[in-house]
């Protein structure tokens, strides 16, 4: 089974990378980008076929490791 965990910065947390990317896009002459925030995705292959169980495992993985919940939010999508 496949799943994706998406980790994004909480709003209000400064994102130097996103800021730098904004600047870089501007200097590349790419117009119309107001702001950029960078996050991470984890594409995960799981053993077994129970989506509910998969979701539980991934929540645990995200809480314990994949996200730093002090500054990050996460979202789990089991894709089946």
């Amino acid at each position, binding site marked *: 089974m496949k799943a994706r965990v998406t980790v994004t910065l909480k709003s209000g947390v*400064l994102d*130097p*990378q996103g800021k*730098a990317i904004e600047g870089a896009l501007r200097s590349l002459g790419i117009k119309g980008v107001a702001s950029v925030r960078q996050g991470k995705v984890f594409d995960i292959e799981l053993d077994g076929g129970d989506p509910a169980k998969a979701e539980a495992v991934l929540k645990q993985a995200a809480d314990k*490791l994949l996200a*730093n919940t002090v*500054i990050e939010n996460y979202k789990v999508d089991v894709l089946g």
Partner: protein
Amino acid sequence: MKAAVLVFPGINRERDMARTLRLVSGRAPAMVWHTEGELPAGTDLVVIPGGFSYGDYLRCGAIAARSPVMDAVRRHAAAGGLTLGVCNGFQILCESGLLPGVLMRNQNLRFICREVYLRVERSDTPFTRGYNAGQVIRVPVAHGEGNYIADSETIARLEGEGRVLFRYCAPDGMIDPNWNHNGAINAIAGILNERGNVLGMMPHPENHVEASIGPTDGRGLFAGLVEALARAA
């Protein structure tokens, strides 16, 4: 001083740290592998050195912070034991929750290795008793993610409780964005935990201790620790 230096896969400044501890205290530290469940008996100082534990993959220090040996460090710290995290060690301490906040990518997104100036904010801690409050010391940094960030409440607490021990500054001690190479909030270079026994800092005092190699401003930190531990004993 009975120091223990933690070694995680990918840590790479453990030799620098061990040499410095040996030079300043006269005693070689124990090197403790990340899978250990206990620190050597009698350990009075735990040091988490710099490097790229687990390649700094995922987030700096994230994977190391969840190693078995960190439970032992938590117990050591909870019992009041002195704990020092330098660079990756600081990142690991933040990720493990022993210190608040996060170290983000440097403002310019580049790894930076250079000498910086630090203002020592207090001298009444075991980590800084070798310095005077307000003293400016010159030590190197070498990191890509040293940009300290925490929510405003946490920052207010850190500042209010005098838990910011080191700040990036100009050579004359003034706080100046031009001398804050990584963009850390309030120019924070090193912080204490609430109890005052856990210090995390980005710069590498251990690389400035030998006159034949360069400046020796880092020595005060280790000499101070030796003294503090001798007094406590």
